[in-house]
């Protein structure tokens, strides 16, 4: 931490130094290191107004650079999030598939013998009370668009 601060202090520009660097920058004489120092200097929030045009210029480049960096990080972060979600979904589906299956509970006792399970299923089906015609008639009525018309016709003769 102390070392970091020392480095920062070392590279911190004074206003006059910054003015000189800016001049050199406009003349195209600055090196990459100098431009980096200038960019660091201009990224400070409380600077005199005279630095505003340069802040705008460097701020734009800086922002652009940051934006690219952010999108890559966010991209990786979203991929990780998607991976986590997929793992959870598949995990739960796997668990669910494990729970689903062919079984019966008789008085709280689990049975997995498929023949017994099927026989219990058929027994429950046989409990369903119906007259087949009645249900077929009902299906017909559900699908019959003229049903209301026909029903109203009954009253037309009255």
């Amino acid at each position, binding site marked *: 931490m102390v070392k970091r601060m020392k480095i920062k202090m070392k590279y911190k520009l004074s206003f006059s130094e910054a003015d000189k660097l800016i001049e050199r920058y406009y003349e195209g004489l600055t090196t990459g290191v100098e431009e980096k120092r200038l960019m660091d200097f201009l990224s400070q929030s409380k600077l005199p107004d005279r630095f505003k045009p340069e802040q705008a210029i460097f701020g734009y480049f800086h922002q652009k650079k940051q934006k690219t960096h952010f999108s890559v990080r966010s991209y990786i*972060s979203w991929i*990780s*999030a998607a991976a*986590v*979600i997929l793992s*959870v*979904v598949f995990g*739960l*589906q796997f668990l*669910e598939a494990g729970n*689903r*299956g*062919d*079984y*019966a*509970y*008789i*008085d*709280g006792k689990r049975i997995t013998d498929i023949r017994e*399970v*099927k026989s*219990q*299923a*058929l*027994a*429950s*089906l*046989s*409990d*369903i*009370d*119906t007259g*087949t015609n*009645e*249900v*077929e008639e*009902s*299906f017909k009525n*559900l699908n019959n668009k003229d049903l209301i018309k026909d029903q109203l016709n009954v009253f037309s003769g009255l």
Partner: protein
Amino acid sequence: MTSKKNNVMRSIKKYLILTLLVVFGIVPALQAQNDLQISRVFDQYGEKKGVVMVELTDEMLEGYDFSLFKSITITNNPQAADFIRNCLVKDEAGAKKVKQVVSNGIPTSIYLQLPRKNELYRLILFNESFKPEQKITLIYIESKNDSEDVLKLILKKK
């Protein structure tokens, strides 16, 4: 240091929220039956005494091709019958009532053709008989075949 911590916390929060959304939103939606009130009947009564619960997945049962077959038969439990009827009232919304038998003002037989979900046709069959004892049968079926055909087939086979 603090901003790093914040970033980590933010990304943990993001994963957590997304995971919760998946667990409580998407996964239950994958199971068509879970959007129905009758799933509570299977959960509450399935493993109790005097109850037979059956679950068959992707099975051929006497020629019926079911993706899911669930049935529950409960004897001598009028409270369960009322509970099922209340669930069915809610599940009726958006469903076609193929058949309903009312005895002394109480529905004793209800067949519902539910709207398709995840390409599956769905049926609910409920029946209550009193001789020789009170017996409730509730069946839930998911099938790739048209529910009308499934129901006709079931009833014809009886």
